[in-house]
């Protein structure tokens, strides 16, 4: 009796809702995959079963790689995301370290100012930003987005790292300084290595955000050879009103895979970064 009751409770309280959440989360990706593997004849045949694949074919993938600069876009996206993440981590930690661990005048005000930058709409910035990029002669170069993405990432990274920096006891640093280390040495040799998980969290988070960015890429990268995946897919695979769904879905899936792979290796740090602010705050 009791066994049956808990069995039912498990089914309705755990497995069925869990299944529903997983199906909702994943069905767009399976639909992406299914579409990309069907031939056009099957794809647009109203009598065919939408959920089955009768004649799997790689034709859309082959067309995608042959007819477009897709691989260049993937390479551009990776390069931009890596450089922007690196710059943001460097600047973000320079901002977060004093704010988290030092006492100086204006610290509180500065911390608030950094948080407030979240409330500035990107749509207000893009016209002046385009102006700035134009004057620096950086239009249609990857440097344009490598320089502008950190403006979106640095405040966020600083905020996340501050949480990690605060957790290291001040005594460690003081002890090192009594032993003759300078502040710089105490920071680089003792405090920062202890915060490695924080850097991994902030890094993986910044990396996914940089891969995701759309507005600045849309504005600054109009030449096909410098485009990133999101902007290439929207700009070149959607041609007027005619949609090439097979190719589009192949591109969307291939574009998602690198992010998903990298994320799957660091999922622990990603979740830590995601929840750090919420739980500690």
């Amino acid at each position, binding site marked *: 009796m009791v066994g049956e009751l808990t069995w039912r409770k498990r089914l309705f309280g755990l497995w069925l809702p869990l299944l529903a959440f997983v199906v*909702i989360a994943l069905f767009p990706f399976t639909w992406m995959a299914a579409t990309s593997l069907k031939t056009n004849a099957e794809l647009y045949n109203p009598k065919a079963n939408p959920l089955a694949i009768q004649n799997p074919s790689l034709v859309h993938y082959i067309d995608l790689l042959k007819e477009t600069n897709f691989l260049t876009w993937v390479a551009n996206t990776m390069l931009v995301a890596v450089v922007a993440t690196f710059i943001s981590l460097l600047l973000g930690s320079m*901002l977060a370290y004093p704010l988290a661990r030092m006492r100086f005048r204006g610290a509180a005000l500065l911390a608030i100012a950094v948080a407030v930058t979240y409330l500035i709409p990107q749509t207000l*910035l893009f016209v002046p930003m385009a102006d700035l990029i134009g004057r620096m002669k950086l239009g249609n170069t990857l440097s344009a987005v490598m320089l502008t993405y950190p403006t979106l990432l640095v405040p966020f990274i600083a905020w996340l790292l501050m949480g990690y920096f605060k957790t290291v006891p001040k005594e460690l640093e003081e002890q090192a300084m009594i032993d003759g280390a300078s502040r710089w040495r105490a920071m680089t040799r003792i405090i920062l290595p202890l915060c490695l998980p924080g850097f991994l969290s902030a890094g993986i988070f910044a990396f*996914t955000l940089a891969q995701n960015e759309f507005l600045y890429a849309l504005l600054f990268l109009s030449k096909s050879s410098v485009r990133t995946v999101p902007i290439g897919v929207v700009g070149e695979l959607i041609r007027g009103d005619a949609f090439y769904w097979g190719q589009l879905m192949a591109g969307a899936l291939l574009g998602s895979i690198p992010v998903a792979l990298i994320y799957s290796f660091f999922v622990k740090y990603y979740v830590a970064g995601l929840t750090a602010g919420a739980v500690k705050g």
Partner: protein
Amino acid sequence: MSKILEASRAGALAAPARRTLGLGRLHAFVERESVFSWLMLTPPLLFLLAFLGYPFFYGVYLSFFHREVARPATFVGLGNFVTLSNDPIFWQAVRNTILFTAVATVLKACGGLAMALVMNQDFRVKAVTRAMLLLPFIVPTVLSTVAWQWILDPGMGLFNRLLVVSGLATTGPSWLGTPTMAMISIIMVNTWRGLPFFGISILAGLQTIPVDLHESATIDGAGTWGRFRYVTLPSLLPVIFIVTTFSIVITFFDFQLVYVLTGGGPANSTHLMATYAYSLSMGAGQMGLGSAVALSMVPVLGLLLVLLTLYVRKD
């Protein structure tokens, strides 16, 4: 002064190589907490001033000018804002942005709470499940949104194909073709994407609730609902508040979802303030007017955040 001397003596002791007086003094100066802090802070602050501060103030400045692409700007004072106040599409965009943000955030918060409660049980494939549930949040928005556009396609999209095959409808609705359905669709896709953020964050919050709180509530005779209402929910409120605030800001500024899914259509009915600002600036070339729309977002967002805070305080 004596403090510096002391510090410099300590520094000199620590690093005998730096016994030269000038270097020792410099060293002591750099070792001061405030000097060290500002040396660290200066590069990132200069960067943010150049690439965030300057564009921001220039954007504010632009909103007071009538400026079209490749034409000299003329000062119009509050003229752009007056134009906007008589522009029905602007008010439609404001209403849409508030509706979109409010409905999507409530759906995400409720769904995320449910997801967290389900995930907070013991089962075997938990880590893998969590990774799968987070996928909508990490895959580039544009790519998943393009997939949704195909799912919602009126003729051959997944939803309408399923409706027709299952016999529930002879022809499915035009998901993105009518103002109401298009609005429902963009809220649905935003909810789908943002749900895991709430779910996983609230789950982390759930795991910090001490077990003995639940135990003592059970001893006091609380049932499942009672424990949820009087133990779980109050403990979660701070987490939910922070995640909700964060989500409101992100949802409010959402651009790419609407840009890709509907482009603001049909007939400007799904424009958010962000997409309207973009279409005025880039589409119509009215940069001053576009900047004015973008600037108007700040007080509207402020209002939403104040309302949220008041609502939480009242509780």
